[in-house]
């Protein structure tokens, strides 16, 4: 389990894969998710790599699969809910899948095109029917008008639209032509105006709207259309009219010349429309069947194509060896997993039936490996919040195992309410119990996913909040009297006049019988009724925050010793850790001591003479304070001693390490000799590395010089080191003061939470409870509903997020800057389960 504290030990390994079994071996490795591949061809572009054609084939298959998935989704067919995990298909099976996909694509394309054509036909026929029906009304109108025209033949038309009347046109022998069709309603006015401007009275336009909505074939939206009938004289006018109709995208249909012809056409259209409806229904059924059949296997194909593409990407990262028969891959692998890696390669070779097995060979390297920390479902949440700040450097101490306890605790100190903690814990427990429910796991909602990933964190936060709620004795802003209060009001012996005349009365613990002893667990419930409750709680919470802060920071400083010991930099222990710890403890540790001493040494009897710690602390620095009464005998002497030690530790911290390193590099010459001697004797770098590794295992003191890299004669830059150490010293010393003050946010947020809770109760719940009438009962029901909604939204969500954020900041900044580097690279293994799918991203799966 040292993995969680420090991270796994990693090594660089070379895989020698036979070309025949390379695909299967990488498929096995992808299923296991053990190793991270390194790119051995970094200078080669994507198009020059070896397996470019296979990747293109995969992308073609993905395109077809995307089309299929979109069609399936459009037809509202649900995909099967099985948890399938097919292995990557062998190259020889790929052709079969490709053929099936292409066949499906062609079939679907054909059927869809046919369907569209049929629908377009149907639309045309429907429009024709409408046109015939509506123009019949025009004709009936004009037929009624004809006898009138005949009567007034001698007199010219009163209508100004025609310049020549009907009879004179007939005498001229001009032919009367008709154009009829449909046009969209939005265009009809422009159409009419254009006709009038161009043809100037040689045309008559009549139009009427179609009652029902017709589907626009281009956009698929229902639009309103208008049936028009243009009667014109003359061929040239006719051509102009036809051009205008084309311009406005009208659908023109032939106009029947007589009523019998019209009736025949209408009958024929009706039968044709019925036939088309039947054919369309059959086509849609067939399309749906094809899609259902495709949807059964499309999910499997998606996963198979994804795995295949991933394997080819990895094969592109490998390089060929000199004999060109063997693929070489370089991987980062945890040292403990090398036997598993070997077994996976054997399995892959066996599956592909190769005679020569593939094998793995560990190689030495001076690159820093990526950091791998193995987590389970409980620790992964906490590791994620640590990694969000920075992934730990290789083999550095990981703050995550400590964060499992300190983070929920600091959150709970700021949240501290029993009732809210219970609700939070119940919510988290529900998520934990239902964590195997597929619907909860696979939702797309980002916010829900964030909460679900952190369900164990929320559970711990809730449980710790229940504890701090008991300590603060705060449950929905009311205190619980479990053990019986330690204060007695009766013992004060107030008279009736005192009761009636005074607004505020003070319980004096010095009077016998008033204070019977401290409450066993937490704050006494009587404080909930006291008017000076906040004064008391503020003092308590501020001191508590400072104490918790100093403990947390000291713990961080102590953790840095783990790093110094592991990386064999023992001088850091004496030159960095010790001054830091002394500085922190001599000043702020002493403050904690004074707080605790004052709590223990002073009681209610001498509370009037209890000294102010702040004044004593300030006087400690100013070396004054003769006029003040000491807290304990020998205080001045001790304080001077502590201040001197703290002040002396600053130059040690500033100059110790650079000076020591300078002396180490330039003072003794024997190390240079050692290096050169060994170089002459053993020429191979590998042996030198192995010797170095051997030295490290033996704990030799020369090994700490190997950190300077391959060049042993590298100059030690004193100025650089001094500057770095100066920055660190200033940051640390000033940071001690500011970080201690920063921990006061523990007090501030818990005060805010308590006050919000109280205000919510007073303004919402109390109104419902104080209702005295008979309706007051029913009023309480919606009041409680409002109280619940506001509690969840303001106190749980808003305050919870706020406390979460502040606790996180305290960890990231105040705790981790005492020891954490966080400059590592995360280990990303090649695993099929971790690969993203573009279809999921589009919401198709």
């Amino acid at each position, binding site marked *: 389990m040292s993995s969680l504290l420090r991270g796994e030990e990693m090594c660089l390994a070379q895989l020698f894969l036979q070309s025949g079994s390379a695909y299967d071996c990488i498929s096995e490795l992808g299923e296991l998710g053990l190793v991270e591949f390194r790119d051995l061809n970094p200078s080669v572009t994507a198009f020059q790599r070896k397996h470019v054609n296979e990747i293109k084939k995969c992308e073609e298959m993905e395109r077809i699969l995307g089309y299929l998935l979109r069609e399936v989704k459009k037809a509202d067919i649900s995909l099967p809910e099985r948890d399938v995990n097919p292995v990557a298909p062998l190259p020889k099976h790929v052709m079969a899948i490709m053929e099936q996909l292409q066949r499906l694509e062609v079939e679907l394309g054909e059927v869809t095109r046919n369907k569209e054509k049929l629908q377009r036909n149907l639309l045309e026929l429907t429009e024709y029917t409408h046109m015939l029906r509506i123009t019949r009304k025009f004709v009936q109108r004009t037929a009624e008008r004809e006898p009138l025209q005949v009567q007034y033949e001698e007199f010219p038309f009163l209508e100004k639209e025609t310049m020549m009347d009907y009879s004179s046109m007939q005498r001229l022998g001009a032919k009367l032509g008709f154009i009829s069709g449909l046009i969209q309603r939005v265009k009809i006015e422009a159409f009419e105006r254009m006709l009038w401007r161009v043809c100037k009275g040689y045309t008559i336009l009549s139009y009427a709207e179609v009652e029902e909505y017709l589907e626009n074939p281009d956009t698929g939206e229902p639009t309103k259309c208008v049936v028009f009938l243009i009667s014109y004289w003359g061929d040239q006018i006719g051509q102009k009219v036809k051009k205008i109709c084309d311009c406005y995208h009208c659908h023109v249909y032939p106009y029947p010349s007589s009523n019998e012809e019209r009736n025949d056409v209408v009958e024929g259209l009706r039968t044709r429309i019925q036939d088309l409806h039947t054919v369309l229904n059959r086509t849609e059924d067939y399309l749906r069947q094809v899609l259902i059949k495709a949807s059964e296997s499309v999910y499997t194909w998606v996963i198979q194509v994804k795995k295949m593409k991933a394997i080819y990407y990895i094969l592109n990262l490998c390089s060929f060896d000199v004999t060109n028969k063997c693929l070489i891959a370089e991987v980062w692998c945890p040292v403990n997993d090398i036997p598993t890696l070997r077994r996976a390669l054997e399995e892959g070779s066996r599956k592909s039936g190769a005679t020569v097995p593939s094998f793995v060979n560990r190689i030495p390297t001076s690159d820093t490996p990526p950091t791998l920390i193995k987590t389970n479902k409980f620790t992964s949440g906490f590791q994620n919040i640590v990694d969000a700040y920075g992934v730990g450097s290789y083999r550095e101490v990981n703050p995550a195992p400590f964060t499992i306890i300190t983070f929920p605790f600091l959150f709970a100190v700021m949240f501290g309410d029993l009732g809210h903690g219970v609700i939070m814990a119940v919510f988290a427990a529900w998520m934990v119990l239902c964590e195997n429910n597929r619907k909860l796991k696979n939702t797309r909602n980002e916010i829900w996913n964030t909460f679900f990933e952190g369900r164990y964190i929320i559970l711990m936060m809730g449980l710790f909040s229940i504890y701090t709620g008991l300590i603060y004795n705060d449950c929905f802003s009311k205190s619980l009297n479990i053990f019986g209060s330690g204060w007695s009001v009766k013992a004060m012996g107030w008279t009736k006049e005192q009761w009636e005349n005074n607004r505020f009365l003070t319980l004096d613990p010095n009077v016998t019988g008033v204070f019977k002893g401290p409450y066993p667990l937490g704050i006494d419930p009587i404080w909930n009724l006291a008017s000076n409750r906040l004064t008391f709680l503020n003092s308590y919470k501020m001191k508590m925050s400072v104490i918790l802060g100093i403990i947390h920071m000291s713990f961080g400083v102590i953790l840095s010793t783990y790093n110094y010991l592991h990386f064999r930099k023992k001088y850091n222990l004496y030159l960095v850790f010790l001054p830091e710890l002394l500085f922190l403890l001599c000043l702020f540790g002493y403050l904690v001591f004074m707080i605790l001493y004052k709590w223990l040494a002073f009681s209610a009897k001498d509370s009037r003479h209890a000294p102010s710690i702040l004044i004593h602390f300030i006087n400690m620095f100013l070396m004054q304070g003769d006029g003040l009464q000491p807290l304990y005998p020998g205080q001045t002497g001790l304080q001077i001693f502590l201040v001197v030690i703290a002040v002396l530790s600053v130059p040690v911290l500033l100059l110790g390490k650079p000076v020591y390193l300078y002396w180490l590099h330039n003072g003794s010459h024997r190390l240079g000799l050692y290096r050169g001697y060994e170089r002459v004797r053993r020429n191979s770098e590998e042996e030198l590395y192995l010797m170095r590794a051997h030295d490290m295992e033996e704990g030799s003191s020369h090994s700490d010089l190997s950190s300077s890299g391959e060049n042993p004669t590298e100059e030690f830059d004193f100025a650089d080191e001094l500057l770095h150490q100066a920055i660190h010293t200033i940051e640390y010393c000033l940071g001690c003061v500011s970080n201690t003050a920063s921990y006061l946010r523990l007090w501030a947020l818990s005060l805010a939470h308590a006050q919000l809770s109280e205000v919510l109760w*007073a303004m919402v719940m109390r109104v419902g*409870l104080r209702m005295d009438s008979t309706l007051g009962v029913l009023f309480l029901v919606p009041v409680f509903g409002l109280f619940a909604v506001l509690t969840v939204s303001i106190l749980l969500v808003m305050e919870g997020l706020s406390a979460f954020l502040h606790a996180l900041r305290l960890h990231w900044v105040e705790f981790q800057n005492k020891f954490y580097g966080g400059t590592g690279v995360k280990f990303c293994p090649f695993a099929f389960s971790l690969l993203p799918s573009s279809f999921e991203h589009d919401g198709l799966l």
Partner: protein
Amino acid sequence: MYMLSTSRTLPVSNHSHLTELMIIRKSVELVSASRLPFLNQTLIMRVLICGPKLAACGMVLSMWGVIMLAILGIFFTTHSAVLIEDVPLTYKDIREDTNPQRIYDLYNSVGYNCFIAAAVYILFGAFACCQMRLNKQKELVH
């Protein structure tokens, strides 16, 4: 719809509403024998008011309401001092007599109010539970 189609295919005599009634009754029997879940479904559609999420929220709220109001009611009936500001006391109740009986009575009345509200929330919870079950049935059918 099914009922209408059967009545169209059967011969309908011009007179006698009795024959029509007989036909309608026969078709109703046919319907009830073979299409029972269909009728039930229409019943579900009419009674179902909330979606699944609203019903779940209602259940959570009513569970919380029942528990919290019941506990509050218990605390009021045991005359807990912490809740004194939530009781509708007047100056007269405090100053009238040294016997705190009036105050205790007020406490009790508020406590009973809380119990009644808790009972209303039980009903609300039952309703929400019913809606959730209907939603699950509807999901199974589809």
